[in-house]
């Protein structure tokens, strides 16, 4: 039996945050909420989305002995005047981030472009390290990402976020 893994998201203020398990989507917009409706919460030209603070959550190991090598990247068009930024990176990784209230100001955590193809090595850590692994149910480090636009940004593009991990039996 394979491991059971879900994608989680945390929203709200630190002291009273909501941790949503097994999110239905990763829609980004002008609200700090999971599975938001982008039509009702559009990002204005020149503005930023609220940061997403997400986790890869191993709910059950099944017959796996280890989960490691976490990778995150996007595919699909983002539009010419928008940038998708993240804390995920294969070098100079900043370690595990402590949750802070998501902001729509320019993120100080998501500062590097989200890869547009699968990275050749892990870009999201476990226990603060890109070489970390889980041998029992638990969480990855927080994946923090944000869309930033300029005043020429137009609507209509969509991009998919991809998550991958290695499972060792």
């Amino acid at each position, binding site marked *: *039996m*394979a491991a*059971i893994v*879900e994608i*989680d*998201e*945390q929203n709200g203020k630190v*002291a*009273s*945050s*909501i*941790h*949503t*398990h*097994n*999110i*239905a989507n990763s829609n980004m917009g002008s609200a700090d909420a*999971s*599975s938001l409706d982008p039509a009702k919460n559009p990002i204005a030209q020149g503005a930023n989305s609220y940061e997403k603070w997400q986790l890869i959550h191993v*709910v*059950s190991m*099944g017959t796996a002995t280890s989960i490691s090598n976490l990778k995150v990247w996007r595919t699909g068009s983002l539009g010419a005047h928008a940038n998708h930024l993240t804390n995920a990176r294969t070098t100079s990784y900043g370690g595990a981030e402590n949750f802070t209230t998501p902001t729509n100001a320019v993120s100080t955590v998501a500062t590097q472009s989200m890869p547009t193809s699968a990275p050749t090595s892990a870009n999201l850590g476990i226990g603060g390290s890109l070489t970390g692994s889980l041998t029992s149910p638990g969480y990855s480090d927080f994946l923090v990402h944000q869309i930033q636009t300029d005043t020429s940004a137009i609507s209509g593009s969509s991009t998919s976020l991809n998550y991958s991990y290695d499972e060792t039996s």
Partner: protein
Amino acid sequence: MVKHLCGQCSKKFSSLSAYLKHKCSATEHTPAEIEHFQSPSHAATTPIKRKGTIFPDEEILEAIAEARKK
């Protein structure tokens, strides 16, 4: 204090363990049940039917034997 929310059925829980134990009304499974990730088409098994066989094997063998006699 962190509250836990199931992203499928939107039910709120006061702890992770309560979330993991709940039977989700959207998926009809607890989060740690493997069946949650199996589609009905995988869960159901359909017997494989032989195609193109009109006659029983015995009749075919008899027909071959008759043909060889001629």
